[in-house]
C-alpha cells in the first residue's frame, strides 16, 4: 500500500513538473487529487484497513496529498505568472491615442476667475464679500459719495440714466454707503460687481467690472491701505512686487491716491534685458492699477445711524480706507490680454485659454 502511494506521488510529481499550462495543471489536479482519484480513495479507505496498518498508510497518503497540493500551488503560481506576462505583452496599447470618451472640463470666464481670485485674496485678509444693485439711485451713486452737484461724472454724456434719479451705477462704491447703513463699524468688506460708464473706444467698454474695498474702524490709516494693497499686489502679480501710492483726487476719499504696482514684466526697471523699453509699463516701471484713499469724512456724514448700524459712523471717531479696482485691467495685465473687446466677444478660442 505504502509503495503504491509513493508510486502515485512520484508519477504525479513528474506530471505536474512537466505541465506547461494552467489548464493542464488543473487536469492533473483532478486526476490525482479529485474525488474519484486513487490517492483520495486510498485515504478514504484507511478506515477499512487493519488497525496496525491504518497509522502508517494514513500518514503516508496524507503526506503525499499535502506534498502534491503544495506542488500544484507552486506550479500554478509559476505558470499563471508566466501566462500573465504573455497576456500583458499581448494587451499592450498605443498610449498616445486620446482617452475616451473625451470629456474635457469647461472653464470660468477669465473675468469671473479673476474676480474670484480677488475675493479669495481679500477674504484671506479678513474682508467679507458683499454685492449690491447695478441699477442704483443718484443718491447712492453720487450724492452720498460726496460728488458735487456739478461733478462731470453725473453728465448724461458719461453716465447711463434710467430716470432723473436712477442710474446704472458707475462704480461699486454705492455699496460703501449701503454696507455702512446695514452694519456697524468695524467693517471690512469687498464688493465685486458690474459697473457702467458711457464710453466706448479702444480702452473703454460701456460695462466693466470692479472690486471695491472698504475698511472702517477707529484707527485705519493710509499706511494700512498700503499694506493691504501690497498683500493684494503680491498675491496677484508675484511676491517680488512693490506698490507705490500717488496722490490723486476722488470725491469720496481724502487723502486720495492712485496705486501703482511695480511692473512684473521688467521687474520695475522700465526696460527689458535686451535694453528695449518695456511695452507693458511703457518704460515707467510701474503699472497703474487702482484708485483708493482714506474715506472722506463727508461720506460718513451721509450714513444715517439706525438700529442696524448703531452706534453709527461718526467722522471724528471712525476712519478707514476704500479702493476700487478694475477687474478687466488686472486680468489684462496679468494675462497679457491685448484688447478689451475679447472679454465680451466670448470666442471659445479665447475662453478655452483660461480654463
Amino acid at each position, binding site marked *: 500500500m505504502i509503495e503504491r502511494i509513493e508510486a502515485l506521488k512520484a508519477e504525479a510529481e513528474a506530471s505536474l513538473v512537466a505541465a506547461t499550462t494552467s489548464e493542464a495543471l488543473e487536469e492533473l489536479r483532478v486526476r490525482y487529487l479529485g474525488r474519484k482519484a486513487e490517492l483520495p480513495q486510498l485515504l478514504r479507505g484507511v478506515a477499512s484497513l487493519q488497525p496496525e496498518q491504518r497509522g502508517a498508510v494514513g500518514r503516508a497518503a496524507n503526506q503525499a496529498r499535502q506534498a502534491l497540493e503544495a506542488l500544484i500551488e507552486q506550479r500554478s503560481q509559476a505558470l499563471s505568472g508566466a501566462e500573465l506576462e504573455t497576456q500583458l505583452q499581448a494587451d499592450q496599447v498605443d498610449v498616445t491615442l486620446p482617452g475616451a470618451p473625451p470629456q474635457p472640463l469647461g472653464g470660468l470666464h477669465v473675468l469671473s476667475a479673476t474676480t474670484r481670485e480677488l475675493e479669495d485674496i481679500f477674504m484671506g485678509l479678513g474682508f467679507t464679500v458683499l454685492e449690491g444693485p447695478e441699477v442704483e439711485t443718484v443718491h447712492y451713486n453720487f450724492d452720498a459719495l460726496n460728488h458735487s452737484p456739478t461733478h462731470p461724472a453725473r453728465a448724461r*454724456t458719461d453716465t447711463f*440714466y434710467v430716470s432723473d434719479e436712477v442710474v446704472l451705477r458707475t462704480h461699486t462704491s454705492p455699496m460703501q454707503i449701503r454696507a455702512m447703513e446695514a452694519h456697524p463699524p468695524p467693517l471690512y468688506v469687498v464688493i465685486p460687481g458690474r459697473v457702467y460708464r458711457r464710453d466706448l473706444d479702444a480702452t473703454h467698454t460701456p460695462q466693466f467690472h470692479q472690486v471695491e474695498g472698504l475698511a472702517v474702524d477707529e484707527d485705519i490709516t*493710509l499706511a494700512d491701505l498700503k499694506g493691504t494693497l501690497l498683500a493684494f499686489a503680491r498675491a496677484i502679480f508675484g511676491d517680488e512686487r512693490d506698490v507705490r501710492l500717488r496722490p490723486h483726487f476722488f470725491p469720496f476719499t481724502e487723502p486720495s491716491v492712485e496705486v501703482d504696482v511695480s511692473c512684473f514684466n521688467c521687474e520695475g526697471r522700465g526696460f527689458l534685458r535686451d535694453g528695449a523699453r518695456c511695452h507693458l509699463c511703457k518704460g515707467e516701471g510701474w503699472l497703474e492699477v487702482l484708485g483708493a484713499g482714506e474715506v472722506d469724512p463727508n461720506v460718513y456724514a451721509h450714513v444715517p445711524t439706525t438700529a442696524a448700524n448703531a452706534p453709527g459712523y461718526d467722522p471724528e471717531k471712525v476712519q478707514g480706507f476704500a479702493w476700487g479696482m478694475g477687474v478687466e485691467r488686472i486680468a489684462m495685465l496679468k494675462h497679457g490680454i491685448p484688447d478689451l473687446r475679447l472679454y465680451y466677444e466670448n470666442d471659445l478660442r479665447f475662453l478655452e485659454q483660461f480654463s
Partner: protein
Amino acid sequence: MRVPLPWLREYCDPELDTAAIEQRLTMTGTKVEAIHRHGVDAIENFVVGEVLKCERHPDADRLSVCEVDLGGARPEGPATIVCGAANVAAGQFVGVARPGSIMPDGTKLKKAKLRGVASEGMILAEDELAIGVDHDGIMVLQDLLPEVELQPGRPLAEVLPLAAEVLELEITPNRPDCLGVYGVARELHAATGAPLAPAPWSEDLGSSGELAGAEVLVECPELCPRFTARVFEDVTIAQSPPWLKARLMAAGQRPINNVVDITNYAMLLSGQPLHAFDLDRVAGARLRVRRAQPGEQVQTLDGQTRTLDEQMVVIEDAEGPTSIAGLMGGVRSEVQSDTTRVLMEVATWNGPNIHRSSWQLALRSEASSRFEKGLAPEQCLHAQALATRLMIELCGARVLPGTIDVGSPPAPAPTIHLREARVQRILGVTIASVRQAEILGALDFQTQALPDGLQVTVPAVRREDVTREIDLIEEVARIDGVDRLPATLPARRGAAGSLSHPQRVRRAAEDALVGRGLHEIVGWSFTDPGLLDRLRIPAEHHLRQVVTLENPLSEAQSLLRPTLMGSLLDVAHHNVSRGQPKIAIFESGAVYRAAAESPLADEHHALGALLSGELQPRSWRGGTAAGTANEADFFAIKGVLAAVLGRFKLDWRVEAAQWPFLHPGRSASVLVGDVKLGFVGEIHPLVAAQWDLARTAVFAIDLGKLAAAAAPVAHFKAFASVPPLRQDIAVVLPEVVAAAEVLERVLKAGGSTLTQAEVFDVYSGPQVGEGKRSLALALTFQAPDRTLTDEDVAPVRKRIIAALSELGGELRG
C-alpha cells in the same frame, strides 16, 4: 493741460532734468501723462542765413533759386536753396533748415533736386517750425526780430524758440489753480523746494477806481460773482511776436492776433479766462449781464446759432446779446483787424451753472472747462494785470485809468485748525508740525503755530478745495508723506472674511457646469428692443417689463436684458459662425426687469446654459459616450441641469410648460416644491433660425431662489451596513402616462423598503403596440438591519405591479 517746460522753468527752475521733474510732479499729485517734444530736432542744423541772390528757377515760375550765406555753418561758401515762397528776396535774413534737420512732424530733411536744381536745405516759414500757423511766406527775420542782431551762421535757436519739451499734465478737478502755468510752478516749488518767482501779476500797470467810457450792469450777481473790465485805446492789431506765438503753439493754442493771443496767454499763465471786446462794436459802450430768455438765440464765434434757456447767462449790449457768458464770445463784438479800442473782460462765473450750460449746449471751451471748476474772484485781477502789461507792450495800447469791478468782495479767507496728532492718526506716519508749516507755506497757505498744531489760512485760489482739516492733511501728505508710508495691516477687529450662502451656491453651481464641460461667457447687460421680438415674447409677457435707458449709446444697447437668452444665443451664433462644432456655454449674471414698487430694477442673478452642435467629439473607439445621444436635445440639457441641482441635494422636478422661445413639446418649468426656479427646453426652431443655429437646448434658473432652496449645511443621514437588493422590471404602459407619475406610484407602493426607483430604458415600437411604450425600471430595496432576499421583497413587488396595472401597465416578458 499742456505746459511747455521752458515756460514753467521761468517761474520755478529746480535745476533737475525732465525725468526728475516728471517724477516729483507725478508723486505729489500732478500726474505727468506724457512728455512731448514740440518743434524741431537735430537743432544744430537750423541756422540764420542771409539771402545774397534770389533768381527765378529756370524751369518753374513759382520757385526761386537763392544763394544763401550761412556764415560759419557753411564755410566753403553760400548754399544754393530752392524756395517756393513769393516773398523771398535778396538782402533778407532768413531761417534755414539744412539737410539733416528733423522737422516738427518727424521728417528728416535731405538734399533734394527741385526741377533739376539741387537744393541744400529749406528757407523756413513759421508754420514749418510749428511756432506759428502762417504759411503765406517765409519769415523775414529782420522784420520779425528788429532788436535782434542777426548774422549768417548764427544758430537759429538763439533767436527763435525752436523746440520745447511740453509736459502733458492730468489736473484733477479740484485744482483749477493748476490750469495755469504759474499754479503748476507753485506745485513744482512745493514739490522740489526750488525757489518760486514772484507772481507775474504782482505788478499791475493798470489802476483801480472809476473807469470812464464804458459801463457794465450785472443783473444776476448769483451767477456772476465778479465782473471786471478795463479799456485800452490806440490798439494796433497785428501778429504776435514769435516768442508768444511759439509759446501758444507749444501749449496747444492757435495764434490769431496779438489781442486774442494776449487773452489766451494770460489764461494759460493764470488759469483765469479773459475775453476781449472791440469797444467800438459794443453798441452803447455798455454791457449788461443777464439771464437768457428761454429760447433766445445767440450766434457764437464758431459761426453756430445757439438756443439758450433761462439758466444761461448772456452778455448783451444795446443791440442784444454778444456772448454766452463763460462759454464763448459772439461774432458781432469780436476784435478785428481794424480794432483800436478794446474792452478787456475778466469775470468770475458760477461754476456749476457754467458746467450745466456747457453740457446743455454741448459747447466746451478752454474757458468753460476752467470756469466750471469754480475760480476764485481774486483771479480776475491777476488776469487783468497780465493782460494790461502785454497790451501795452505788444499792441502799443494805452490803458485807461480805472477798472470796472462789479460784485461783492469775496469772503475772507477761511482758517482751519490742523492738529498735529490727527495727521499721524490718518496717515500712519509722522510729519512734524514744523514740516507741515513749511509745506503749507510753499503752497501759499499761511500758518500760525498752536500748542497742538497749526492755525492755517487758505489762499483764495484754494478756497473751494480746502475747507476742512482733512483737506489740509491731504495737502501735507501729498508733498511729504504718501511716498514714504510704511506698509502696515489694519487691526481687523472682528474681521472674518467669508462668502454668503448665496455666493457659495453660485460658485458651486458654476463649478458644476465647468465640471460638465461648459465654458462660462460674460455677455452684455445691454440689449436691443428687437431681441424680445426675435424671442417671440408676446406683448403682455412679463419679460416685456424691461428697464429702458434714457441715454443709451445706441438703440441696439437701449434696454437692460430681461433674460440671459440673448447673450447665450449671440455667443452661440458667434462661435458657430467661426466653425466651432460644439457649443456648451453658460452665463452667470444679473437680469433686470422694471419693478412696480421700487424706482430701482428688479434684478436677480440668473444662471443660464446653452448646448448646441455635436456634444461629443468623434472618437477612435467609435460611437459616443455609452448611452448618450450626441445631439443637443432636451435630455442633454436636462442632464446638465441635473448635475447643477444634484450638487445641492434638492428634491426638484420639471413640469411640461410653454415658453414663447422654447419648443412647445420640449420645454418645462423647473420646480422645487412650489417654487419655480426657471425653465429647461429646446429653443423653438423659429427662434434658433434667427441665430442660424441647429437644434439648441437651454436652461435658465434664478440663483437666488436656488440658494433659498438649497440647505447651507448638509446633515448626516445614517445608511445601512448591509447591501441593498436590486431588481429590474419592465412594464408596458400607455404613452400618455408620464415617467414621473409611474415612479411616484411605484415609490408609494414600494413603501419604506423601496428606497429608489429609476427609469433606465424606454422602448416603443411594434412589440409593445400602438400608443404604448415600455419602461424598464431599476428598483433598489433596502432594509436597515438585514440583507433582503427575493422572497422578502416578493410582497412589495406584488404591490408595485398592482399599482402599475392601475395606470394601465402590464409586466413585460
